[in-house]
């Protein structure tokens, strides 16, 4: 089963250049994030390059500090790499939580139908129309010193309904397929039908749900931080942009503090969207070539 899913994923990737591109960019960003402790060590040469007053402040980009230093004398390159890792982690946490919740809600509602579907769909709909951003602003007032995980949870509360909505509609169409009936007359139970007959066919939709929730979470947080309402204690890309704006870094020649995080976020946005579009585009087994394999 896991092998089969892997093979299906590989086949999907081979069929779309856009999907492959998105995944490559995403992969590079994740690799950089994974190696951020090593990169920090290499830059610091033994000491921590993002400690307060590790170096002189406001150094312009040069050979010793590729992207210069900030108002506290921290190495911007090391900071950006670390912040990228934090942003990706928040995206991953919020993405996983909202996808799992969304998938469970979608399958229960779509497969069971009836009043269960009515209740869940109404609830999902209510959450969908609540304006998220003002609510997050209000929430952040109560969350001054929160951990990375808590931030992820906070944001995913509003991210799952989207995934639930799209997947539910797919479940509704899939559950009336004859192969579901065939599974039922072969004595398959509901849970078995959901996991082995329906779920594999919905992998691309789940992938899309994950990518968009992760994207939503990262950018939601950046949006909060840029207007200075980010939760304290978490330094991600948005936080660096905020400090670049609030200290006037651009006028001091420290342009990388602003440009590099923005560039990385753009790249991330482009990559995740390419994955999204690629998945939607490529995944239609009926269109696969007859001689395929």
């Amino acid at each position, binding site marked *: 089963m896991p092998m*089969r899913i892997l093979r*299906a994923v590989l086949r999907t990737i081979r069929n779309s250049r856009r999907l492959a591109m998105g995944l490559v960019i995403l992969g590079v960003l994740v690799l950089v994030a994974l190696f951020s402790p090593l990169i920090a060590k290499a830059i610091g040469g033994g000491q921590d390059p993002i400690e307060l007053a590790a170096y002189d402040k406001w150094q312009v980009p040069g050979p010793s500090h590729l992207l210069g230093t900030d108002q506290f004398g921290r190495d911007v390159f090391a900071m950006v790499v670390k912040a990228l890792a934090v942003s990706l982690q928040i995206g991953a946490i919020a993405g996983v939580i909202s996808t799992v919740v969304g998938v469970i809600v979608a399958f229960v509602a779509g497969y069971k139908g009836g009043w269960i579907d009515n209740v869940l769909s109404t609830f999902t709909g209510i959450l969908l129309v609540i304006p998220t951003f003002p609510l997050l602003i209000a929430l952040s007032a109560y969350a001054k010193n929160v951990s990375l995980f808590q931030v992820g949870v906070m944001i995913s509360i509003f991210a799952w309904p989207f995934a639930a909505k799209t997947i539910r509609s797919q479940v509704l169409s899939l559950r009336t*397929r*004859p*192969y579901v*009936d*065939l*599974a*039922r*007359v*072969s*004595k*398959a139970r509901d849970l078995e039908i959901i996991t082995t*007959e329906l779920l*594999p*066919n919905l992998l691309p939709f789940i992938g899309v749900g994950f990518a968009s929730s992760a994207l939503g979470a990262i950018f939601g947080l950046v949006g909060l931080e840029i207007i200075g309402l980010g939760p304290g204690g978490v330094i991600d890309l948005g936080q660096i942009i905020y400090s670049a704006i609030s200290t006037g870094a651009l006028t001091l020649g420290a342009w990388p503090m602003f440009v590099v995080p923005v560039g990385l976020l753009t790249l991330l946005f482009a990559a995740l969207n390419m994955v999204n579009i690629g998945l939607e585009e490529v995944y239609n*087994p*009926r269109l*696969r070539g*007859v*001689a*395929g*394999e």
Partner: protein
Amino acid sequence: MKSELELRGVQQRFHARGVADGYITAVDDVSFKLLASPPQIVSLVGQSGSGKSTIARNVLGLQKPTAGSVLYGGKDIFKLNRAEYDAYRRDVQPVFQDPYAIFNPFYRVDRVLWKAVKKFKLASTRAAGLQLIEESLKAVRLEPENVLGRYPHQLSGGQRQRIMLARVHMLRPSFIIADEPVSMLDAQVRKHFLDILLDFQREHGMTTLFITHDLSTVYYLGGEVMVITKGEIVERGSVATVMHEPSHPYTKLLLDSIPQPDPDKRWTTRIQVDELEHLDDNTLGDATKPEAPII
């Protein structure tokens, strides 16, 4: 396994909007009995929307009837205990209409057969299971090496439908519920498929409920026939009797709708679908008159 399958006053209603009382009646007070021995072929004929497929879903336990009951061995199929349910599932198996949608596109076609082996404990080892699968594929005139390991979209409709028959062959149920199994197959493959059904009846003693809108296939299969219209069974009897001396006007209309492979017997008037809707004895006087051949 001596058993019988009986429908007693089955009624199925569905909620529908825009209808006078808020629901439509798909099946109305249908009762009939299928016997496992002697094995028989019973055809259920009717136009689309007449409730044929709903009856199939009721019999297969996929849809609980609004009223009435489906009895297997004298017991309501929705009230069976575990052992009885297992026996019922094993004993009543379907062949569905659409050979394309019946396979999950995610898996190879083998899975359908292996599922049957595992779920119904047909074989204890992998080798024995494979042997069984290959035997059954050969019984429906498929070469195992041509179909095993393939994805559904790589096979033709006829091949897929015969894999379903191979599955039935492996399970050896007493009852096959075949819901329009040949409507999506071409003429040659259709005959092939019907021959296999007849083989199953003769060699393995399987009783088939053959649901169709196509009287020529009913004629070919022989046995008993029931004619259903608007959810009600209006005529039943042996194929020979019903075909030659139809008593219900709807049956007459159906018989007239069989295209003849003879250029001298073209239809000269059009049968309007509307006529089927407002069917009564008065209008049928004209509609069922044998057409004068064009010379």
